[in-house]
């Protein structure tokens, strides 16, 4: 099987190790990965901030870049939801056509590859934050948890108020900093109270907010993308 990786602009710029983990993981599962270099950004920030005109060229680019692939896999719940839910609303037929072929990483693993045990090893206590767009727009349900519970060595800790938004919300974090910070503080507190060593999610933008809040509080809990946990094997952890 051959898939295209849509790494997302946030991961390309700030979290390349997440993209590398996706490549490692998929290749270990026998999937050939392409990375079309003409890709850039899905336009989520523009769209969600109200700049629909600035979104359309990016959606057309996405459609053009990924037109030839049966599966496009992305390690971001919100970018996957942007493509799947919002591209059909843009009045761009090509973008609408590519939408249903775009998969968030964990749903690609459980629904297309039909695996829940990806052969990972991660000897840490972890708590999982279900990001809003993954949870409510994509309807990921317990797919990420199924994958995590099969990781050897991993202890999963419950997160109080797990399905409550962390307060990131894209430009919300900048436009409404007081409310965003208040939400982030509550999320960080719940993460700390879980007793986990790491907080994981399927979206680095939410983790940037949660992790940034934890770091400012001096918390030792580190943010980690679920792809990095699933890519990790006994050879990586000594």
């Amino acid at each position, binding site marked *: 099987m051959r898939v*295209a990786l849509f790494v997302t*602009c946030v*991961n*390309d*710029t*700030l*979290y*390349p*190790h997440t*993209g*590398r983990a996706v490549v490692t993981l998929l290749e270990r599962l026998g999937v050939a990965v392409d*990375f*079309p*270099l003409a890709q*850039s*950004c899905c*336009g989520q*920030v*523009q*769209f*969600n*901030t*109200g*700049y*629909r*005109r*600035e*979104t359309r*060229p*990016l959606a057309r*680019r996405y459609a053009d870049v990924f037109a030839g692939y049966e599966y496009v896999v992305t390690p971001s719940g919100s970018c996957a939801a942007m493509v799947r839910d919002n591209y059909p*609303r843009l009045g761009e037929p090509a973008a609408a056509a590519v939408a249903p072929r775009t998969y968030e990483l964990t749903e690609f693993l459980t629904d297309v590859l039909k695996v829940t045990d990806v052969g990972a090893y991660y000897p840490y206590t972890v708590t999982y934050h279900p990001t*809003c*767009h993954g*949870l*409510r727009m994509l309807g990921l349900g317990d797919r990420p948890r199924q994958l995590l519970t099969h990781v050897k060595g991993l202890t999963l800790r419950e997160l109080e108020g797990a*399905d*409550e*938004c962390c*307060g990131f*919300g*894209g*430009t*919300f*974090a*900048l*436009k*409404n*900093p*007081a*409310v*965003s*910070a*208040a*939400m982030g503080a509550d999320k960080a507190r719940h993460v700390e109270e879980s007793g986990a060593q790491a907080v994981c999610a399927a979206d680095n933008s939410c983790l*940037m*907010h949660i992790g*940034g809040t934890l*770091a*400012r509080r001096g918390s030792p809990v580190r943010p980690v993308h679920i792809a990095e946990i699933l890519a990790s094997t006994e050879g990586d952890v000594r």
Partner: protein
Amino acid sequence: MTGAREGERARAPRTFLGMPRTRPAAFPQAAVAATEDATLRGNLTHATHTIRGKRAAAVAELPDWDRLRAAGAAIKDDTLRHLDRYLEQLEAAVTAAGGHVHWAVDAAEANAIVTRLVRETGADEVVKVKSMATQEIGLNEALAEAGIRAYETDLAELIVQLGDDLPSHILVPAIHKNRGEIRDIFRDRMADWGRPAPAGLGDRPAELAEAARLHLREKFLGAKVAVSGANFMVAESGTMVVLESEGNGRMCLTLPETLISVVGIEKVVPTWRDLEVFLQLLPRSSTAERMNPYTSTWSGPAEDDGPRDFHLVLLDNGRTDTLSDQVGRQALRCIRCSACLNVCPVYERAGGHAYGSAYPGPIGAILTPQLRGTASALDASLPYASTLCGACYEVCPVAIDIPEVLVHLRTRVAEGGTYTVRGTKAVIKPAKGHAAERAAMRAARWTMDRPRAYGAALRATTGTRRLHPRRLPGPGKAWSATRDLPPVPQEPFRAWWRRTRGAGS
């Protein structure tokens, strides 16, 4: 809407949503005080989480909840599509039952009609059962200007009124007050409005309720005129339907001689059979009850029972403008249950007052900018008062896709466009204060749409990684005041791919 007009028709109609005296701050600034008030945060978190849990349990009891929800949305959509027909049917049925129907294009007209009707009875006071529509139009303030005192009779509305305060929640208007604060308000203010609070009043709920009961009983027995809203209006029979939990509504609707109901035009449903769906959806979503405690229905005045005179004021106040918007019109399905407020993480931190209208929370963020427009700084900021987390859509009993409407309204704010304003097509300009943001969005799109420019931008970011500060100045402070910035990696992902996999595809 056509029909008898009232007031000066020379002035332009103006949509007013019953809010504050001074020019309100934009949402982000208005929310700051609430986020810093530990007591308020505690009150809000405790109250919203309690109702949230109860609602979830009440909804989970019904195996066909999803179908009920779909039916509720479908009935509302169908009714809105043929609203003109159902409203005329309603008018005919109410008139045939002996009631009088008045049409109000905006708040000023509705207030003028109610003021005239009260004056014609010779009364200088009215009792009120909680009504969102009369809060929306600022009826109490308009009546006060005409020398007519309006007494709120719901417990929470009484607290708000005595405290010279504003409601901050649709279902629980005094959600921002705790028991001690309520006791103080009753003790200090009841005497100004009628029967004083009992001596030595404590803050136990039973004591507070008894004080309110004694205070209000005098109002019910003395009032000649009552003002209400309605949750639903049945077109086929001209029947008004009011749902409440305290019994005060039943008293208002039956004891006075004259009853005036101010109701938004979107509250009509075609038949009694349609009502069956909403009488299941509303109580479970709102108070988490299986059945509503006090459900009053009336079709015109009765000969020897209840009010002898019934007036229905049908209120537009921006609703037909909203109806003309294909995405935004779903907001008119709202049955004012407040489930969206109780699950909203932004409402929980910001409180209801920051929304600056009678409609707080997610529904307010999509309703207010449509009813009132997006011209003011506050109204233009409301569509952005959300992380788009979608919790509101999930619980909405009539399936209003609130995030979809929020993004739609953000586009109206950021890009402008052609919309219906006061009944006519108008070009709305992009809102002020978005110039820098617009330039940034355009620049980002320009870069992202050009692989060479994008690649260069990535190289520039990682190439200067050692120079990146941990805290940002200027607008970046909004992020870095409370959050560390992530470290910038040595190379972007695409550089790693090129280095290890060649040029790729």
